[in-house]
């Protein structure tokens, strides 16, 4: 049987393992979400290129943002705004997680 101090040390080790597992899981999930949002944004951006670089003087991009999903320009705007917001949230959460992790490591 372990002594009280051995038990305490063991609990601290296991606590650190649980925290690092949790941190890894959350980081993977957030990275995945960020990547997905980024890919979708790139898609939406690529759809805009012909309008931007086109030489016919047609700069009406509103109907091009999300034309893979719908022809309605309003949906395009909403989609891009939602994706940009989701990406922003994911990146912010990721930064907070990394910051907290660094702080915890420093305290140790």
């Amino acid at each position, binding site marked *: *049987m*372990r002594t*009280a101090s051995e*038990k*305490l040390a*063991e*609990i*601290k080790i*296991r*606590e650190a*393992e*649980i*925290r690092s597992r*949790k941190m890894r899981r959350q980081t993977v999930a957030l990275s995945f979400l960020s990547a997905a949002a980024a890919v979708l944004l790139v898609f939406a951006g690529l759809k805009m290129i012909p309008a931007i670089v086109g030489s016919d003087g047609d700069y009406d991009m509103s109907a091009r943002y999300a034309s893979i999903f719908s022809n309605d320009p309003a949906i395009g705007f909403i989609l891009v705004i939602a994706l940009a917001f989701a990406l922003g949230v994911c990146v912010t959460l990721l930064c907070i997680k990394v910051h907290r992790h660094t702080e915890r490591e420093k*305290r140790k």
Partner: protein
Amino acid sequence: MISDESLYYRYLDGDDDALAELLSRYDESLNLFLFSFVQNAEDAEELALDAFARLAASDKRFQGRSSFKTWLFAIGRNLALQHLRRHRINAGTLTDEARDEKTPDLPMLSEERYRQLYLAMEKLKAEYRQVLYLKYFEDMTVSETATVLKKSERQVSDLIYRGKQSLKETLEKEGFEYEDGQ
């Protein structure tokens, strides 16, 4: 005396002594409770440490819906059931390999009366054993026992009644005198 909840918050704020105090308060009783599931002193000790580690790593701060002790024992119970599932052991019918006949050697059982009672409880069905342990060794109310074991209060009351009957028979078989109401 500082409450368990205050100690827990102090630990979360970085006071390691608070965890040591919580450990000294509940290590033994949690060990005995978990032993009633796994019937193996070493496994019970490991699971008790896991329960404390889970609690220490918990981001959800204690919400006060039940007492700290109830929360700790409920975490312990979940871990014990996971352990039994992982090792494909039925809580009611432990195999000889899984069963370690030795009862944990803890100061709480140093008093002969408690030791005999605990040994007699070892012979009962697992659910009787668990419910009687919480009620009589840990002085938990029916409601607290129900929270730990995730059962309704009615079920717990029934289990206590049937457990007491079963314990009475066991004690009588072993030549002990049993007074109703104790």
